[in-house]
């Protein structure tokens, strides 16, 4: 399995969907360390999904580029896998065949892939379901299969676009915990898009708060909490309040971003558009 996640550089990405349409992402510049779990928070329509698609290579940015371990990407790859709100499993395949799909595309037959498939299904607590029809699974189980499918190609980066928002609270809590533990275990770099501050606090090492119209990084802050994280823990609650403060700040209409943050909480890389262009580049 992967022993290290990839380093990602979002190098001044600006995006509009059509030449004359509004700017969706405006000069986003973020560096993500290998194995880091980064949450991107922001209001609906601020361009979170767009940014994630661009990192995955599923959309080409109008300007700028994505560098994975220093190499500019120019398309999707099984090394950086995206997961969506819907599990999008293939109903004509069993659970096991769904999980093995990435290996099949890479030329490994099902019987050869099977030991790894079994290992991954154990990892997501679905060891007994390898031959089950995916339509017989609950939403949470389906999302676990999708997770196993994403992990099958030993990705260095996992990109999650609100992957748990269609699930009930219990399942969501369990999956948050499990996904973070698995990513940390395998050392995978995790980028998580969410509406939910709790999710960011439970799952991420670092949070980006985004502004809408155009999409910009408003705040960039570390979430320094020990594992495992429980929602009821006072330290977790305090982080939640702090993030909420940053998030509310982005909702303010004419507020200057610097003034919404207490000085000691602004990391030096928080304002990409105020940084010198070359900073952080290698």
């Amino acid at each position, binding site marked *: 399995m992967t022993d290290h996640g990839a380093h990602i550089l979002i190098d001044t990405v600006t995006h509009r969907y059509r030449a004359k349409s509004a700017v969706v992402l405006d000069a986003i510049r973020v560096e993500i360390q290998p194995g880091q779990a980064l949450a991107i928070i922001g209001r609906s329509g601020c361009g979170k999904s767009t940014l994630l698609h661009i990192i995955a290579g599923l959309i080409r940015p109008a300007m700028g580029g994505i560098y994975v371990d220093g190499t500019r990407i120019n398309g*999707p790859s*099984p090394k950086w*896998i*995206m997961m*969506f709100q819907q599990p999008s499993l*293939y109903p*004509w395949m069993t659970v096991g065949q769904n999980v093995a799909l990435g290996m099949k*595309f890479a030329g490994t037959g099902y019987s050869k892939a099977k030991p790894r498939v079994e290992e991954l299904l154990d990892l997501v607590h679905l060891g007994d379901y390898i031959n089950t029809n995916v339509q017989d699974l609950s939403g949470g189980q389906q999302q676990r299969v999708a997770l196993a*499918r994403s992990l099958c190609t030993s990705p260095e980066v996992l990109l999650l676009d609100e992957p748990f928002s269609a699930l009930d609270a219990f399942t969501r809590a369990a999956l948050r915990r499990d996904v973070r533990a698995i990513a940390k275990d395998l050392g995978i770099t995790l980028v998580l898009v969410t509406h939910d501050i709790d999710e960011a606090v439970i799952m991420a090492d670092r949070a980006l708060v985004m502004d809408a119209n155009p999409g910009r990084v408003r705040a960039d802050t570390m979430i320094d909490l020990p594992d495992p994280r429980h929602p009821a823990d006072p330290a977790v609650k305090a982080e939640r309040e702090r993030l909420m403060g940053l998030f509310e700040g982005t909702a303010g209409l004419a507020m200057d971003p610097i003034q919404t943050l207490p000085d000691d909480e602004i990391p030096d890389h928080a304002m990409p558009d105020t940084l010198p262009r070359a900073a952080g580049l290698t």
Partner: protein
Amino acid sequence: MTAPAVMMGPDGRSLTVIGLLRSPTLLRAAYPILGVSGLLGLWWLGGEVIAGNPDTAAFSDFAPGPAFAALGEMLLDGSILEAVVPSLLRVGLGLLWAIVIGLPLGILIGRVPAFRDATHIPFQFLRMVSPLSWMPIAVMTFNTWDAAIVFLITAAAIWPVTFATANGLRKVDPAWFKVARNLGARGWHMLMHIIMPAIAQDVLTGVRLALGVAWIVLVPAEYLGVTSGLGYAINDARDILEYDRLAALVVTIGVLGFALDSICLTLIRRYSWVRG
């Protein structure tokens, strides 16, 4: 279902006799039997009316009695098989061509918007032309009658396959393509592991429709030129005034068509992943 299919006794056990009488399985078999009997009854009644009228009495062999007697004879002497085999071959070949051409065409329409826009009007126009109107052109173009008939069947069967494929593709969840692309699927893999299984049911439904049209076009197409097949046999029976054989052939066409349709339906069930 709100009404219980099986009545429960006071002690909670089912009253099996009443249960059996109300069994939905029994009812399900009863209605088709009733329908088929009704059709046979109408046929018989028609035969009686024809036989009773001196003007039409010459056609009285159309009735079920003589027809089934003739059918038995024809099954024994192999003349049914002689008519059926060439017809099945022509329909099979025509359908094969319709799939070979129509399936890629449908995938192109479903996946390439420019192709869809360019071909929409021409294809809708061609689709509306009765396949039989190509007959003179087919006869001029092809060296053999057989080839001309296969062409006519293809011309009829290609549109249901094409449009069902295109339609199936349009309904496919775009996320399936996105996930597959992300997992490393390119060209052939995407086609064989994602596109084809995703649209299999729609394609087979198109093939089923195509078979229906092909089967209908077959008989009139065989009225011309060829000296074998069901259409030829019908024409022949009419010319020599053997109305019992004619009716037997009609029954054969209906039964075979029904059987072919059932095969398609079985295939559709086999390859369908949609939960009913």
